């Protein structure tokens, strides 16, 4: 072999090293797949910094088992690891020393933040930075606020799911689709909210024995990103009507003393803002709902026009009551623009918005001085497959 050929041969062999591209290789067995994380406040230090606790839930694949294998030999399907520190990134690195695996966050589904953390001014916005900045984090991570300790939520033991974080994830998705809860907030949306200084709401979960209840809403003040209050039950439902474009919940009303449940099929919401003057802004919120009669006690015929009209009227009144209550609380008491009136001003009345934006829900607070009117129209479209199930009875 000539010398030149030998040099070439050596050169090609060296090149294959680059081609293999295994500099970043991590075997899949060595990756710890984090599916959920929880952030708790440990203490507020005297110098104003915070000691935080990050808990991550890693999936233990052998505990999951395959359908054939059954329940995987009774092994737990997850592993929770907590570490504390000031910087979440460092905490995360510290966590790697506690486990035999490399934490891998690209499949992170859910981030639970404790109420204690978000009630401190500015802290929430700061800690979200890592989750937005780090390339490993996906923008679809869902965020929830937890009443009490967030890491406890990662430890609940539901009967039907093996990994608590995945349970919470599907719970949120289902509740949003079926029970008229608030839509889960993604970290990508949160970045937009943080940047715009707009006030917003994030779904809140409550720890109830073996289950998680997912139905409240934590209300945030956009300027400091601190949680100012939480809306529960009726108020949260009212908020859903005011902010969500589609709410597939149900609504229960009393017609002539008999209970009727209307299943909502579609909810359309429109906001019209007419700014006359800085202190005289008219806001008209139109909510239009379509629904079907889902369940009814009593014996009046649902095929009668007058009866349907009555149901519609009652649904309208009920929604109006709920939304007005929420609106009053948000506008007069908390003075935060979660409904998005400011957005409408920006979109439709840009020049006017520029004159008020610095005093919108801060400073002069023109928002709380505006007149918001809610107008609800309801339409019952279908009554189900039967008119009534009994003909004689109460009256």
């Amino acid at each position, binding site marked *: 072999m000539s010398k030149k050929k030998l040099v070439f041969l050596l050169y090609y062999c060296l090149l294959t090293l680059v081609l293999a591209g295994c500099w970043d290789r991590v075997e899949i067995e060595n990756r710890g797949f984090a599916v959920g994380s929880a952030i708790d406040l440990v203490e507020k230090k005297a110098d104003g910094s915070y000691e935080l606790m990050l808990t991550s839930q890693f999936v233990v694949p052998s505990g999951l088992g395959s359908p054939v294998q059954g329940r995987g030999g009774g092994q737990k399907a997850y592993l929770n690891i907590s570490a504390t520190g000031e910087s979440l990134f460092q905490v995360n690195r510290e966590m790697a020393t506690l486990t035999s695996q490399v934490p891998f966050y690209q499949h992170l589904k859910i981030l639970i933040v404790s109420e204690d953390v978000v009630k401190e001014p500015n802290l929430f916005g700061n800690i979200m930075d890592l989750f937005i900045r780090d390339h490993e984090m*996906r923008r679809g991570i869902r965020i929830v606020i937890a009443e009490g300790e967030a890491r406890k939520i990662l430890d609940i033991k539901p009967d039907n799911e093996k990994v608590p974080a995945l349970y919470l994830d599907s719970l949120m998705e289902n509740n949003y689709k079926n029970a008229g809860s608030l839509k889960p907030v993604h970290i990508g949306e949160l970045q*937009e909210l943080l940047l715009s200084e707009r006030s917003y709401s994030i779904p809140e979960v409550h720890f109830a024995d073996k289950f998680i209840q997912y139905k409240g809403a934590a209300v945030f003040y956009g300027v400091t990103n601190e949680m100012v209050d939480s809306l529960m039950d009726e108020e949260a439902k009212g908020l859903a009507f005011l902010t969500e474009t589609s709410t597939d919940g149900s609504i229960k009303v009393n017609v002539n003393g008999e209970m009727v449940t209307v299943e909502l099929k579609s909810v359309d919401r429109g906001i019209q803002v007419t700014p006359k003057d800085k202190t005289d802004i008219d806001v008209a919120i139109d909510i239009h709902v379509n629904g079907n009669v889902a369940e009814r006690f009593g014996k009046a015929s649902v095929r009668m026009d007058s009866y349907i009209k009555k149901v519609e009227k009652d649904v309208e009144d009920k929604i109006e009551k709920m939304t007005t209550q929420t609106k009053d609380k948000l506008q007069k008491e908390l003075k935060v623009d979660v409904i998005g009136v400011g*957005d409408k001003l*920006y979109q439709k009345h840009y020049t006017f918005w520029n004159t008020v934006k610095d005093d919108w829900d801060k400073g002069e607070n023109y928002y709380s001085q505006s007149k918001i009117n809610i107008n609800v129209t309801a339409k019952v479209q279908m009554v189900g497959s039967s008119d009534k199930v009994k003909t004689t009875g109460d009256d």
Partner: protein
Amino acid sequence: MKWFEYGDETISDKELLIAVPSTIIGVGILSLPREIAKNTVSADGWLSIFIVGVLFIGFAWIIAKLASTYPHQSFFSYASSLVTRPIATVLTILLALQGFVLTAFVMRVISDIAKEYLFDQTPVEVIALSFLLVVVYAIAGSRAGLFRLNMMFFPIIIFITVLVGGFAVAWFSVDNYLPVFKTDLSGHLKAMQTSSFSFTGLAILLFYTSIVRKPKKAPKMAAIGMAIVPVLYIFIYLLCLGVFGNLATANLNYPIIELAKEIEVPGGFFERFDSIFFVIWIMSIFNTTAMSLDVTVFALESISKLKKIQLLYILAPLIYLVGMFPQDLITVVQLGEFVSYYGVLITIFATVLLVIMSVIKRRRSNV
């Protein structure tokens, strides 16, 4: 070693058409939505891209028209006849230099992005080297083959962009486009300035028109090819704006990659769409670097006695050094600004000079 030789080193007019967007679309669009969103209100920036796009379509037509007036003549030979040999040599070197720095810059940027998103541990130097080696390998072969590679990659790039758009519909909000037309003139001018940087690479037309089989069609084809660029840019820009809104777009380093990261293929069996998008986008960046390096080699071939392979051996290490020279992100951005300014200015300068000379010459010969 034996090389496969194509019958002739000429290209069809369609290949020229595809070569234009292949060269121009590259790293610019990755950050373009951010730069434009910064300077404009809501989604007004599409107007800036549109205006710049129309200007560049006209510009592409003029360049191709100029080059096709001298059919089958290389840039150096028609430039020599217009502005004398020494000036033509200087022009060729200056234009070759723009392809040279563009290659170095693009190589550096793609390595940085690849490190950020894909290779956490691999050094940038190694990523850049392996990328450059592939580019050099492509150029070492047939020139016409390179154009065919463009033809092959380009539809895939369009397809993946449209696919991202399709999946992004779920995250889309039309409200993000309101209000309309509220940007002031200075905002538009700034946005136009930054978007013009994403249109560098037209200089290839000055050189490659000479190897087109039917040069008469070249101006039309160049203009059509150029038109694809703003259309794709506006599509991507509006997509980012619709999903992220103006504020978030202005704060994301590479909005389109984040967009690929945000979308989820329904069904949940495939969560990391960004990796596919990224791999395909590297094809587009490969096209950019291959074309701009090849045009440099092509230009220098015409003025020196060196062979293509020899030139390549000299240029490749230099490109690597220039690309690796910036130490941090700030210097890379500065290099990028220099590359863009220089690329646009030198191309305009050379074209305008030659067009004027050519018009004067024709007047004289008519008289």
